[in-house]
């Protein structure tokens, strides 16, 4: 017991000794820079129109983490940003909001738009107009080239957004992939870019890019209808002489209409008409 007592004293002394060593600097305030960067008028506009109402941020200043660093791209001209995003707001957000309900875009939307001024040219000579990544981010290229007075320019630009948004909708609720895959199974090809659009249409595809796979096919079919007036779309169908091809495109159209109705309770044609009305409003103002 005596030994134990002696050791007990030593142990307590030792514990005290160790504890006394635990003297370290306490953390102070963060060393990271948390000051809010100065906001420009454009930043405030983005805040009012996208960030606050829809929780969507718009990146127009360069951040290499948001873009493919192997590509030779550059930021858009600052004075092109607001006009481009006004088009996005009017034709895409406003159309879906009117038809799908005030909260539709708030619930399902990319959270980030990345704007790029230059052309995203691929080494095979094709041009990438837009990218949708994981349903979270949509990158739009060639913002510098957008001409609001030209219907062709607006249609191409909005087609990119409509196309990418259809992907995001598909990622939320899948479409009937099995039914789709049965329609034109042999027409899909990775070298879609060498195919003339007329050939693709005679095989039952609305565009050549639609021939990459069924997901692009769905997005292209939906986006083409949304960016065309009824008359324009009818003209496309009328230009197809192959009866089977025409029937396949119409069957795809029916699947798109059904998908919007069943998944989101949206009448696809009403949405198309609203988008067209808003497109006219953009071009005429």
């Amino acid at each position, binding site marked *: 017991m005596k030994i134990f007592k002696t*050791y007990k004293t*030593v142990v307590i002394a030792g514990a005290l000794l160790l504890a006394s060593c635990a003297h370290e600097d306490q953390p102070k305030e963060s*060393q990271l820079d948390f000051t809010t960067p*100065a906001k420009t008028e454009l930043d405030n506009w983005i805040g009012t129109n996208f960030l606050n109402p829809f929780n969507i941020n718009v990146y*127009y200043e360069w951040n290499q983490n948001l873009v493919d660093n192997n590509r030779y791209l550059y930021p858009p001209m600052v004075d092109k940003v607001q006009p481009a995003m006004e088009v996005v707001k009017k034709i895409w957000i406003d159309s879906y909001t009117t038809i799908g309900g005030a909260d539709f875009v708030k619930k399902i939307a990319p959270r980030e738009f990345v704007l790029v001024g*230059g052309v995203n040219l691929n080494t095979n000579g094709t041009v990438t107009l837009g990218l949708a990544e994981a349903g979270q981010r949509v990158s739009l290229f060639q913002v510098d080239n957008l001409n609001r007075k030209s219907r062709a320019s607006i249609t191409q630009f909005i087609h990119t957004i409509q196309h990418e948004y259809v992907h995001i909708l598909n990622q939320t609720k899948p479409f009937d992939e099995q039914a789709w895959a049965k329609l034109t199974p042999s027409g899909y090809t990775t070298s879609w870019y060498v195919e003339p659009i007329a050939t693709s249409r005679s095989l039952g595809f609305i565009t050549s890019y639609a021939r990459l796979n069924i997901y692009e096919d769905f997005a292209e079919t939906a986006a083409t209808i949304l960016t065309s007036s009824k008359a324009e779309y009818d003209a496309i169908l009328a230009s197809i002489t192959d009866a089977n091809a025409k029937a396949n495109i119409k069957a795809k159209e029916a699947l798109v209409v059904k998908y919007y109705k069943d998944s989101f309770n949206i009448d696809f044609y009403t949405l198309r008409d609203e988008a067209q009305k808003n497109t006219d409003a953009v071009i005429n103002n």
Partner: protein
Amino acid sequence: MKVKYIYKCLMIAFAALLLGSCSSPEVDAKFDQNATDRLSGRQKELNDLLLSSADGWKAVYYTDSTQLGGWTHLFKFLPDGKVNMASDFTGKDGSIDTKTYQSQYDIQVGSTVSLVFTTQNRIHLLSDASNYPTAALLAKGYLGDFQFYYYGQKNGDIIFRTNRNSHFLRFVKATPKDWADLPGNVPIIKAITGDMNSPLFRILEINDGTTTKNYDFSYNPSARFGTGYSLESGVNTSYDLALSFNPLGAYSKLPLEVKGQKLTDYVYDSATNAFVATGKDGVKATIKYTNAPPRLTDDYKVTLPAAGAPSTAYGYIAANLANAPTNSQLCNYLLNEINNASAAKVNRVQFTFYNNRTVDIMYSFTGGKATVYHRATVTEDAVNKTIILKHSLWHNGTAVIAADPLVKNLDDKLMDPKGLYVTKESFRITYSNTIYTFAGASSSFRITTYAFQ
């Protein structure tokens, strides 16, 4: 006893622990500050440095001096994240805009501190995928960056490394003279680029103090890069020049080594329209224009069939050869001048060389205009290796007619008093016919034809 041993062992272990815990925590610090402090310190240091120069900074940006030249950029950084910038970049349409534009910049912190030009300005012109100076740079533009990693300072200069290919880039303090001088680069760049009336060929003439050797200088004005190829047969020597410009001339980042001397500064001499780099002891390198092809050949002899031999014919056919790269700008200009004048468009310009030293130049058209022929005599200039065509008469195949004013300007180039160079080219266009070009000896006119025999 057993318990005692256990305690003893425990105590030894405990003592070891105790001693170990007292080992000095004072590690020799490699740095005075921790990583965060150092990064934010570097961030502030770089920003302060950029703002410190009253007239901003100058950088001659060589994106890749193995295949491209350099572009001069001037930057003036402003306190609120704004930057004024100017450059001597040559646009797609050949225009050079040296005006100053404002955009934003940022000092970003990642693994290290970098300067990023976050909104569009002149420097971004170098990284436009859709504007590339050579076929090899498809989708890569001019290989430019606009994010530069801060590497340090040296003699008052700021050293960066570029983002994608880690090349060094030096920012030198700019002076008011630098800003005033920038527009002065434009006439120099235009002088080396030339226009449609500039002679077709460039020569790099190298004098080593005793002898002069000529090199066929192939220069790409967009890339600002040229290579001089030896004209001696069997010699494969070549010299690369990666040029940037200043109001006095050109500077090559790749020095031209002659007799141990490194020539880099080519001064423009407007009197001779040449760029001259002068060394010591008579060493000199000159870039100059010439209408005479660097390699003269006997190809012209095909236009001189011997008496009794069949005639030879060479034809420019608009449908196939309008986009031939060997048609000179002046040739295209003159053809377009005819095409734009009326409904008649040039269909063919065709030479038929007879065996009696005469030629019929046929001009045929689409759009309803009748074919006309210009007959001329052909004289050989064996010294300069040219043929000289001299007017005889105009006819329409059956009767003599007056000269056709529509084709006058083009026809005048073919009647060049100094003659025409005739060259058999090594490439084919659409068909298997041999391609021959006819070039004016005293103008930059050159037309591409198919040989019909």
